[in-house]
């Protein structure tokens, strides 16, 4: 079946769903079950078409070569191989036909005419395929879950409309064949994130800071704007340098330019600027502050947008631009350091939260840090793999927490949970499986992806043992705070108020069913990408199917490393990819494997030790660690620091601008108006209605003209 030429339809299904639900629900035509019937169908259709397209793609794109040659402006086909990624692109329409623009190249005296043409280009390769399937599959499941979670909400239709719009934008981001189409999706998902965080716009969100949900939405939007500014600058620098935004043309141009003297600083600059965009969207240090507050949104939104899909857009973008990053070791270093720091820093904050969603939020920030750590050390495949597994286990955790929140009187406070295992067995078991996965128990998905990232950060040519150490410390904390959440929520004595305890029960099937599917994914998905090091231990060969599929997309081309040796994992002639600085020995692999399990067990043990016996020891220790707890609970006072360093000066400038605007700009305008009026008031007196006076003025004028002519 020929599906690939129609991939541009995929985002249109949810977009149509958004328009139908949005307008008809607002008009009051669409009511009740029809809202979610339309919305879920739209999302499911996107999934079906995506799956068909990926199926078509996996059969090879050679069949489309004749189509591409018959309409070269519309279709483009790259038939890949071991090192070259297969790709199918369709340009639906022209968008920016800026042919003949003069662009100044970076080398002196190098002016040239550029043929900058940006079209509505949608393309599909292995990386897109992975993202497509994750986004549409998890997205559809979360649509289904929302039927149960949002039941009876007065904004039911609004919620599903936004959710569909988000899907459309996310799919645009993923399918975009150039940076500009990707940016449309990038901004679109930011908009949907804002709309959905502020979904309960009139309700208070954080009693400590007095924020409303609308404030949280604004915070997310504005923080993202800071990052997007960097993204845009990076994109513009790309246009100025290479005269194109097309991903295919870019990687060729970058590989071609790598020999010039200006390539390294310029590519590093572009890489860092684009990464600034990623720190905003993917909540990395220093722009992560919005994500914990994004928990003001409904829980399915937290699961879909702020865990599984949107926040991973930065990782996707970096992998998409991997050609650039391979040639910019400086930028990769920045990415790796920021990722590792975020992974540890966010984990420390997750330890002291009582709000279950905030624990998960900091966990998300931390896990995204691991993905960036992976991308930064060149383990793009592992980073994307962690993205996929994280999408499943974190979505499951969030939806599990939503199931708990909905049954516990809509409180997020884990101090008011406890012992829920008895009432909510399905939620408990799925939550536990996902916790085991994220904490890194051996065969589950989180182990496969996270520990592959850590191993690569230790062994890769661009890694460093310090990065690995920071990541491993973060992993201990991950295991700890996740099991802390499990014990506080599901074990021990129930601490809910009486009226809540009386009506405690399991969530409806529509919710638990989704949890089960996601938990199954969280448990088993790791098997599609068993790292080489692990499969070697159990006596299997190279069974990393995921890496085989994805590798050609993110492989480094044209990068030759001095450390490149013949024994590098998968290294070919003059090609370095996921190169290993040190090739790990069998013993080292075993050591890492056992260490990973040790990390898992340490966190688990600590959590059990402190929170196991109905939180007895945690309670006993609390006074002694009061200071640390306060520091962590208040998130290292980063919000306060930003308030002092950024917001306060900003407000001061804004107030200065306000005065300037009020008195100088408005003053000038008002003066002009007043002067005109005064002139009019005086001059109108000449129009007195007496004809003879007019004749006199006429005469005066004539005499004046005559006098001037005679002079």
């Amino acid at each position, binding site marked *: 079946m020929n599906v690939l030429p129609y991939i541009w339809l995929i985002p249109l299904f949810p977009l149509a769903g958004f328009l139908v639900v949005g307008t008809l629900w607002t008009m009051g035509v669409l009511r009740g079950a029809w809202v979610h019937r339309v919305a879920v169908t739209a999302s499911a259709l996107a999934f079906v078409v995506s799956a068909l397209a990926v199926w078509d793609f996996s059969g090879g794109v050679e069949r489309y070569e004749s189509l591409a040659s018959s309409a070269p402006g519309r279709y483009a086909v790259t038939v890949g191989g071991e090192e070259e990624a297969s790709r199918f692109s369709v340009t639906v329409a022209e968008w920016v036909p800026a042919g003949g623009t003069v662009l100044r190249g970076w080398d002196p005296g190098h002016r040239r005419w550029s043929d900058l043409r940006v079209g509505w280009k949608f393309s599909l390769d292995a990386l897109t395929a992975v993202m497509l399937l994750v986004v549409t599959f998890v997205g559809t499941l979360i649509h289904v879950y929302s039927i149960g979670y949002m039941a009876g909400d007065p904004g039911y239709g609004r919620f599903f409309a936004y959710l569909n719009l988000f899907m459309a934008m996310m799919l645009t981001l993923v399918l975009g064949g150039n940076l500009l189409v990707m940016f449309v999706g990038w901004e679109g998902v930011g908009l949907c994130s804002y709309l959905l965080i502020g979904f309960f716009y009139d309700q208070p969100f954080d009693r400590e800071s007095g924020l409303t949900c609308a404030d949280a939405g604004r915070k997310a939007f504005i923080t993202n704007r800071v990052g997007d500014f960097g993204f845009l600058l990076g994109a513009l620098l790309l246009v100025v340098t290479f005269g194109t935004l097309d991903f295919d043309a870019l990687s060729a141009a970058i590989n071609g330019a790598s020999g010039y003297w200006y390539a390294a600083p310029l590519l590093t600059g572009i890489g860092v600027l684009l990464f600034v965009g990623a720190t905003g969207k993917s909540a990395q240090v220093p722009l992560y502050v919005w994500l914990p507050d994004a928990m003001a949104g409904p829980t399915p939104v937290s699961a879909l947008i702020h865990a599984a899909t949107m926040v991973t857009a930065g990782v996707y973008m970096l992998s998409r631009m991997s050609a650039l990053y391979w040639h910019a070791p400086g930028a990769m270093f920045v990415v790796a350091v920021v990722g590792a720091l975020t992974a540890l820093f966010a984990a420390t904050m997750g330890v002291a939260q009582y709000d279950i969603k905030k624990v998960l939020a900091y966990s998300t920030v931390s896990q995204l840090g691991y993905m960036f750590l992976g991308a930064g050390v060149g383990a793009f495949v592992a980073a994307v793999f962690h993205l996929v597994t994280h999408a499943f286990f974190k979505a499951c955790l969030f939806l599990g927490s939503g199931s708990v929140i909905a049954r516990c009187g809509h409180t997020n406070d884990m101090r008011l949970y406890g012992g829920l295992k008895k009432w909510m067995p399905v939620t408990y078991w799925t939550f536990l499986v996902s916790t085991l996965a994220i904490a890194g128990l051996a065969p589950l998905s989180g182990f496969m992806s996270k520990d592959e990232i850590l191993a690569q950060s230790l062994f890769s040519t661009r890694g460093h043992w310090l990065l690995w150490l920071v990541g491993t410390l973060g992993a201990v904390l991950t295991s700890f705070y996740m099991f802390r959440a499990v014990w506080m929520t599901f074990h021990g004595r129930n601490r809910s108020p009486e009226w809540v305890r009386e009506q405690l029960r399991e969530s409806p099937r529509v919710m638990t069913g989704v949890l089960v599917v996601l938990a199954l994914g969280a448990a088993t998905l790791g098997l599609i990408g068993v790292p080489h090091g692990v499969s070697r231990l159990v006596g299997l060969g190279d069974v990393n199917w995921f890496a085989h599929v994805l590798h050609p997309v993110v492989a480094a081309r044209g990068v030759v490393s001095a450390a490149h040796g013949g024994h590098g994992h998968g290294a070919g002639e003059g090609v370095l990819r996921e190169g290993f600085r040190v090739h790990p020995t069998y013993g080292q692999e075993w050591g890492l494997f056992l260490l990973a399990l040790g990390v898992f067990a340490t966190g688990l043990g600590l959590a059990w030790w402190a929170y196991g016996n109905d939180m007895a020891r945690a309670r006993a220790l609390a006074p002694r660690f009061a200071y640390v707890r306060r520091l962590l609970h208040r998130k290292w006072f980063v919000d306060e620091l930003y308030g002092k360093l950024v917001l306060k000066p900003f407000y001061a400038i804004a107030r200065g601008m306000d005065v300037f605007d009020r008195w100088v700009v408005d003053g000038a305008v008002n003066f002009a108006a007043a002067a005109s009026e005064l002139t009019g008031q005086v001059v109108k007196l000449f129009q007195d209605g*007496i004809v003879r006076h007019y*004749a*006199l003025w006429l005469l005066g004028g004539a005499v004046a003209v005559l006098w001037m002519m005679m002079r």
Partner: protein
Amino acid sequence: MQVDPGSVLVLSAILFAIGVFGVISRRGAVVLLMGVELMLNAGNLALVAAARVTPAGGELGAMDGQVLAFLVLAIAAAEAAVGLALVIALFRHKGSVDVDLARMLRW
């Protein structure tokens, strides 16, 4: 008898000044119209006199001034018709032909 064109122009200027004085000083609409008529005809006189001293040239020779005077006569006739109609309308409205009474059209 040959008249000096210069003295005709002076006469024209005097007639024009009288007309202007009439328009500005008199409140009666009819006299005001007469002043206007006087100014127009002073203009005619100047045109005809100037035509006399213009060197001949073109198909019409120095007839331009005379032709223009005819044009002014025609326009003056139309102007008189409209002006008198206005005077009548003013009289019907106000019971007088004093133009200073018609002063509603002002600030």
